[in-house]
Structures are given as C-alpha cells and as structure tokens.
C-alpha cells in the first residue's frame, strides 16, 4: 500500500509530467488559456491516460513480449491509443452526450498528447505490474491536471496584469512555467 502511495506522490509532485518529465507540453501551453478548458482537459487526460496505461500494459505483456517483437512497441502503442481515443469519443458521444460535451471535445487533442504515449512507455520501462501501472498512469495524469489547472489560473490572472508588450502571450507563460518548475524542484528527492 505504501508502495502505491509513493508511486502517486512521485508521479504528481516529484516527477511531475510537465515540470520534470517534459511530457504533454503542447496541450499544456495550448489549452491553459482558460481555466474552464483546462479543467475539462485535465479530466479527459486522467480518464484516457489511466485507460491507455492499462491497455498498453496488456498489449506489451501478452502480445509483444511473448512474441519477442518489442521493437513494434511504438507503432503498436500509438495505434492502440489512437483507436482507443477515437472509440471512447464515438461511444461517449452516443451514450453520455453531456459528458461528451464536457470532456469529449478534448479527446482528439489527447491522441497527440505525448504524455499518453510517454507514460505508457515509461510504465513498461519501469517494469511495473498491472496495478502499479494503473496507479502510475493515474498519478501522472493527476500531476498533469494539477499543473495544468494551476497554470491556467495563473495565465488568466496574467491577463489582468500590466505585462510589457514584449513579454505578452507565450513568453510570459514560459517564464511563469519556469518559476513554477523552480517551485516543483523543491519536491525533488522526496521519493528515492
């Protein structure tokens, strides 16, 4: 149990997807302009990443490894993730339209979120078992969501500040992210 808790803490704070692993930065900067959007995106990522982590684990353990074709990992994973995302989108649209309106619109964006593929590959590399993989994927997504939501609120606040013209837009966002990364450095070494 303590093991699993450590995996979560590590994934959320210590090895935060954004600030430590540098994964999923495109949506991080793209979707963090508005708080509402950021919250929706975070939810969608948590859902999809947990699911994707689980399924890629199964693909790796029961197909790729027994057949000794580990080099197909990238292509197999991305194929699985892309279809999975699209499947979820199609099904959600029909079965739960309300949920689709809230989360579904973020789904296409997730296919090319490198956090999904990256975390799936990392989970395999870390030699986690199924439960650990699920927890790890979930925790990583949670870390992504946390970073995204804070950052979106910071960017919304920046909109009301007197940012010099030169720094407006992405440059100031980068600098704010840099300072946030400084703060995240404080968590280093918490999980060994």
């Amino acid at each position, binding site marked *: 149990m303590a093991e699993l808790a450590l995996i979560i803490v590590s994934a959320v704070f210590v090895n935060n997807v954004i600030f430590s692993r540098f994964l999923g930065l495109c949506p991080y900067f793209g979707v963090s302009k508005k708080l509402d959007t950021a919250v929706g995106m975070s939810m969608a990522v948590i859902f999809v990443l947990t699911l994707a982590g689980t399924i890629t684990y199964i693909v790796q353990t029961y197909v790729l490894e027994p057949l000794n074709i580990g080099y197909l990992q990238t292509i197999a994973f991305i194929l699985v993730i892309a279809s999975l995302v699209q499947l979820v989108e199609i099904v959600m649209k029909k079965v739960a339209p309300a949920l689709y309106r809230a989360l579904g619109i973020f789904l296409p964006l997730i296919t090319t979120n490198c956090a999904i593929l990256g975390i799936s590959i990392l989970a395999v590399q870390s030699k986690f078992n199924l439960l650990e993989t699920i927890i790890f994927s979930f925790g990583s997504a949670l870390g992504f969501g946390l970073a995204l939501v804070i950052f979106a609120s910071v960017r*919304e606040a920046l*909109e*009301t500040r*007197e940012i010099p013209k030169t720094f407006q837009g992405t440059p100031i966002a980068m600098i704010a992210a840099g300072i946030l990364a400084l703060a995240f450095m404080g968590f280093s070494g918490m999980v060994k």
Partner: protein
Amino acid sequence: MLQLKTFPKGGIHPSQQKISAQASITYGEIPKQLLIPVNQHIGRTANVVVKKNDVVKRGQLLAQASGFISSNVHAPVDGKVMKVFRFSLLGGAIGEVIQIQPDEPGKSYREVLEQDVELSVDLNKLTAEEIRKRIQEAGIVGMGGAGFPTHVKLSPPPEKKIDALIINGAECEPYITADHRIMVEQPAQIIQGIKILKKLFPEVPVYIGIEDNKPDALNMMDKAAAREEGIFVVPLKAKYPQGGEKQLIKAVLNREVPSKGLPMDVGVIVQNVATVLAIRNVFYHNRPLLERVVTVSGSLVEHPGNILLPIGTPVSYIMDKFNIDRERVRLLLAGGPMMGRTCHSFESPISKTTSALLFFDEKAFVQRQENPCLRCGNCVSVCPMGLDVAIYVQMVQKNKLDDYAKEHIMDCIECGSCTYVCPANRRLVHWMRLGKRIIKREN
C-alpha cells in the same frame, strides 16, 4: 441608551467636517430666474406640459410624469415660462430645463411659505389609496440623493409583506447637515409625516436611524417620538456609509438585502427624513415638492449654513448669497465629498436631490497619480458590500471581466470607501462605475 448599532462589515471613518451643524436653516429670496430641470428623478423623463410665454402659478404642473416610474415637476413660484432648452445640470448631466421668470424676484421665500395655510389633517379619513395618489401627484422623490419616485417605493407588490419602516436620518457623509437641521428644527413635523406613512402600513414599527454624532437631533427626535406608539429612535454608531439603504437595514434590523434585491425583499421600506417632511407638507399645506434644504459649505465658504431654496435656484445665486469668490472656486460638489458629483457650471440649478453644495479651491483636490495595485486588500476590507474590488478593477482595466465579476460588480453602491483607503491612489470607484457601464453596454 442601548448599545449603539452599526453595520458589521467594512466602512470607514472619514473626517466629519460637519461645520454647518449648528447653523439654523435660513431662507433665501426668489432669484431673478429659475431653471427647473425636467428630470430630477430615476425613471422615465417627464413630459413638459407648458410652452414658452405660459403664465404659471406656484404649484402648477410643469411636466407630467410619463409612466409609473416617473415623477411630476411643479412650478415653485408664480411666473412666466421663458423657454424650454437643454442645459448643464448639477453633476455633469445635460438635460432639459424650463426657464421661469418669477413675478416677484427678490421676495423672501419665507414670506411665500408663510402664505401657505396650515391645514388640519384628519388621519382617520385618509385612505391608503388617496395617500399614495397624492404623493405621486406631488412629485415626491427620495431626497437623500438617488431621487427614486417615492410613490413607487410605497407601493410594494402584495406578495412582499412589509414589517418595518426605517426613516433614514443617518446622514453619514461629511459636511452635509441638511437632514440634521430638519430633525433639530422640525421634529414634530417629521413625526406627522411618519404618521401619514404609517397609515399605509398599519401596525408596522417605525425606526428612525440617526448616527450618534448628532446628539441634538437624536434628542429632539427622541422627545418627539416618545409620545407616539410604534416609533422608535435608533442611535447608530457613526460610520460611513451608514446612510446607504442596505447598510442601514443591516445596522437597524440586522437583515441583509439580497444581492440585486430591494429593501422590500426583506420586508422593509426606507425613507429619508427630508422626504418624510416633504410628504407631510403635501397633506398639511397641500404643497407639492417645491423646495428643499441645501447645506452650503466647503473651504471657500466663510459662514457655512443650511438654506431653504425653491427648486431651480441657480448655484450663482447661492454664491452671491454666501459671498463666495468665483475666481477661487475650482471644485463645486453637489452632495458630499464621498458620493457627491462634481459640477462644471455656476448657472446649473439645484434639484429635488441636491442636499449640499460644497465649494473648494484647487488645494482640496487630490492629485490622483494612479499607481499599480499592490493587492493590499484595503479596498476589499472596507467595502461594505464585500466586493473583491481590487480584482474586479484589474479586470475592468483590461476589459477582461469574467462571469463572476460581472455577477457582483453590479452590487457596488459607489460609496467611495475603497478609493478613500487605496494606498496606490487608484480611482477604484470610477473603474467600478466604468465596469457597470461596460456590462450594461454589453446587455
């Protein structure tokens, strides 16, 4: 005396400056010409019913209310209509005025008033219907500043059960002493007015809220009310903006008017003392709203005082009367320094809502160099409405109002407390007003 009541959240203690508090109400003369503003109230503009060269009598209707939320305007003196045109009013607005050439310029207004017969009023014979109708016809509006037609306030829809009446004698703004003097000099008449209002809401207790910085007014009102049943004088701890309707209700009854709501939503009707006096005069003198008491004060006024004047009297008349040097005046305020409005013409006339005229020179004006917001939170802590002023203002400045701010910014009562305490010297109220304006424009 009981423990002093006040509203709990926010508020400030600006320097009182009630230098005219002991000056009895004086009376002016009829000026050479009067400019009667057609629109002296909140609501639809009245329709002018006189033409150039018409001869009008004192009390004659000049403009007819154009709907329920509107108000009549009457001629305060006998005279001739010269013309109807657009002119600068007190407070920066430009609006239609009716220019009247009085028949007897220079005649003491006191004499005019003394010609009005004192009628005896049998309260038992008055019906609620009749009272409302006569108040409406007399063009009575809230004389505290806003100018909301009084008959509308007194006609709550039947589903709103009124269980308390509050008479607003707080007068929390610095300098202004008009209501104070009325309470000192005419307490019995105010009580007569209250008793007329009580006919509309029988059995409902009446509270007269007066701040403790006016002990003589408290004393006089206390004595006058002592003989009456169901009328209570409530002494209040002096704090600005206690005279705000919502703050007064909170202070007196500890009830909170909901956001975007009206006092009647918590079963209360608030009337200003001057308004009550005007109502009284409708019944005891058969006189519509023709005049009001104006405090004349400020650093350039040698002998500050309170003067009763017919509505439409130009500021220049008052300046002559009080010996105010035109060359030195740089700042003319209609109302108090916290919520009053600056004016730009000495020819503008006083209206039903002009409670004070303050004259200052350049020194009184604070050079506002707006500095960046420090987010110190002073504005938030003094805001009697609990608004996050600093945050909203930043949004207004960048035109990035979010839904949350839009929902609350309209609750601002523009009392000015935030601007008063801002260390960065920011024009917070002005920005808030601008924010309101932007929201209205969007809708």
